[in-house]
């Protein structure tokens, strides 16, 4: 079957790729675009490791069919730092030891960014619920929540 | 003489003895001596046991020194996560 041509903006760059219609955005990003920062932890929207922003909305790339994003703007973890300068969330995750194995980290960073875009001063409870779609098995979430709190503080102070 | 203790599971091989005294300078020599006393035990100790010498647990401890005052326990091998 002929493959579908998709034109998108990924992390600020116009990006085109060919895909099967049944391919997920996640696999298209990983296999066709070569961005492997988003991970597949479940393939069913239950773990959040594949979280990306599509037109400024956080979503699980595993639940999006690749052709859906034609004309969309996509942000992955690879696009979070600005010309090599880390996003405050990235910096706070590093400084706060908010990762152990690191497989869930890209998804958490994107989800946390989506939260802080909407709500610059979230409570601990709001952070916990906003990140409930991202599973982490290593940290018990404690240091992740603290890192997001710290990043929110820094971003508000800027 | 080193004091050698057997767990309950090993006592099938020692005729029910829980403890023996053995003259040996290394774990390997100790096992050789035990094999002479309890034929068949050597293979089990080599394959399925780690050893504690004075409270310190070793795996693959063949040449670990044993002294006359040592207390030696053979333990079942276990796996970590």
């Amino acid at each position: 079957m002929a493959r579908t041509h998709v034109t998108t903006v990924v992390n600020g760059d116009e990006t085109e790729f060919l895909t099967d219609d049944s391919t997920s955005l996640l696999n298209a990003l990983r296999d066709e675009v070569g961005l492997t920062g988003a991970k597949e932890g479940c393939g069913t929207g239950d773990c959040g490791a594949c979280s990306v922003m599509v037109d400024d909305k956080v979503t699980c790339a595993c639940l999006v069919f690749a052709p859906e994003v034609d004309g969309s703007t996509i942000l992955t973890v690879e696009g979070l730092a600005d010309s090599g300068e880390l996003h405050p969330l990235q910096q706070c995750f590093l400084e706060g030891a908010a990762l152990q194995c690191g497989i869930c980290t890209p998804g958490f960073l994107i989800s946390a960014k989506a939260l802080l875009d909407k709500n610059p001063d979230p409570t601990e409870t709001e952070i916990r619920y906003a990140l409930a779609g991202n599973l982490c098995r290593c940290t018990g979430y404690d240091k992740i929540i603290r890192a997001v709190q710290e990043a929110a503080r820094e971003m508000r102070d800027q | 003489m080193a004091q050698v203790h057997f767990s309950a599971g090993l006592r099938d091989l020692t005729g029910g003895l829980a403890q023996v005294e053995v003259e040996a300078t290394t774990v390997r020599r100790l096992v050789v001596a035990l094999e002479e006393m309890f034929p068949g035990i050597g293979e089990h100790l080599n394959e399925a046991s780690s050893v504690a010498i004075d409270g310190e647990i070793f795996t693959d401890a063949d040449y670990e020194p044993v002294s006359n005052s040592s207390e030696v326990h053979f333990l079942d091998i276990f796996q970590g996560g």
Partner: protein
Amino acid sequence: MAITEENPGYKWVGTRPIRPDGLEKVTGKAQFGADLMLPGMLFGKVVRSPHAHARIISIDTTAAEAMVGVKAVITGSDFPDLAANGAHPSEIDVANNTIAREKVLYEGHVVAAVAATTREQAEAAAKAVEVTYEILPHVLTVDEAMADDAPLLHEGMITKGVDPAPEEASNVASKILHERGDLDQGFGEADVVVEREFTTKPVHQGYIEPHAAVADANSDGRAHIWCSSQGHFQMRAYSASVLGISPGMLKVTAAEIGGGFGGKTVIYLEPLAVRLSQRAGRPVKLVMDRDEVFRATGPTSGTRIKVKMGVAKDGKITAAEVWMAYEAGAYAGSPVGAAGMTAIACYDIPNFVVEGYDVVCNKPRVAAYRAPGAPMAAFAVESVLDELARDIGMDPIDIRLANAAVEGTQASYGPKFPRIGFVETLEAIKDHPNYTADLGPNQGRGIAAGFWFNAGMMSSATVHINENGTATVVTGSPDIGGSRQSMALMAAEELGIPYESIKAVVADTETVGFNDVTGGSRVTLATGAAVVDACRLIIEDLRARAAKTWDVELDQVEWVDGQAQHVEGAQPPLSMKDLAAKSGRTGGPISANASLNSRGVGAGFSTQLCDVEVDPETGVTRVVRYLTAQDAGRAISPDYVEGQMQGGVVQGIGWALSEEYIHDSDGVMENPGFLDYRIPVASDLPMIDCAIVEVPNPAHPYGVRGVGEVGIVPPMAAVGNAINDALDVRMTDLPMSPVKVLEALNEQRD
């Protein structure tokens, strides 16, 4: 929080800098198992049994082989018959678990694998492999497996550890026994005796990264494997064994690993990927789906455990009797041995019998999971101890203090304990404000303790001094939770150069000496000791070079603060940078290797305090406050020590409240996904308060004990004891789900 000894002036050990591999992991650059793409790479897919127990009558691969894009199809017959080669039974089990031969023993057992140009083609081809089965009756639990007329998984399995050996085969692989004193006398001395029976379900390690392996085989028989595992040397050994080749034919590169918790110390995909690559003549990637991870990889055992314990009025435990049966899954090897050794190891008990059984059943073969075997036993023992404390009106910390193992106590598993920090963890809980914090309505507080051996085993490290005086620390221990940082911190401390000047890397199997798996809480201890040894060799070398430079005797040179100093100050110091810059003139590159079989393992203890709130109308339990105190020996990297403590606790909370394998009556797993296999999410939890206790391990250069595992031992009992404190119901079956809690409350109301 240093309890017994202050930090003796360390500059780097005990600090919290940014981890060496952090940047790659927050920017998406880190390469995990599934991230590698090679030119010409094929995608593989595994064919799995839909049946819990069946004989394979035939496998027809012709339709699959004929499909577009399909380059290779393999089955069990593509692998050597290890039994015929006289291999050790445990190796044969590994091979048969990797790909089934005569029989499938659980739903998800591999029967074949395919490789094709695209994922979709591979998936279609896997569906086209036709397997004919003769379905056999199955057993799913220890009760079913131990029943008199139970169908057998392995026809020739004779129970080990029973004298005389049974004549009949059974599903019981082995029996373990520990005993001391006189049980009748002990119970006779008791003022209160409590007897309870507990059950637990298999639970999965739940790492977020599914297993993944890429193999690239050459026509000369050599192959390169990239995989995420807890030990690439182990993967090399297992793969070589299953493939029937020499380990030297395989090079294994450790990808970053997305969690393991013991579940990635075993092998699943690697030999399949190699064989597919050999058949296809192209690189092959195999990645599991999440449901394959649940159906076919390492849960830990479901169990049935009976505990009877007696105490005198003064709180002294007079006797303990423990009977336990652990599911091994399809092949012998449940962690019942460790369970038997750890069950009552926290306490000095004069009279006890601990008896355990390793039982095979038609579920995936269990794999190590954080302190394997210990948590279920602790759930049972610590629950009973809680009840005993209530019955005699004693504080739950005080009853544990009254019986606590200390230095010199004859451990229940045999030897005398060296210096240990159990009492200090109990005191740390007692001294913490959480211990006396107010509780609201329907809230309760629970305490529990746990023990784990920790491990040493074999490690190698190489340290290179670069030409500008910076250092590269090379080990072969995959970094799951920040071990590169602890390696770099110890190297910085030893060499006296800044942490930032040190790069810690994990090398492949051909670039560094052998390392055992990253498991058993051993890496900071054992690989750390190898790093320390290598650094000390470097310093000896540097002192010799300085002596040569100054034309003085070696004993005139000491190494202080990262530089060679003349003991009498007769020469201006030579810094690491100075010596590195001139290394060509003083003997060539500066480098050292150290390899060891670790000594001085220090046992770990954890005591935990949990506050819950239970909804009495729905049975829903929420953890509202949590404190964990754990003896780290020395926290080289406190951030990641806390991370291990917190992570272990939360896995335990999941085990306590919501995680379980659910099988239907056909032996098919009903919840092979994160929707219904419920690991805790962020909104389920409070912050996890940590009290790091430091009772240095006298046998380690920095006092390290190992921190990865013991944290998961107490939580189930801590949660259960808290539920009991809240509503006076004793939960004995994990998970303590809303359904079960409400049932218990209904019974109480009736």
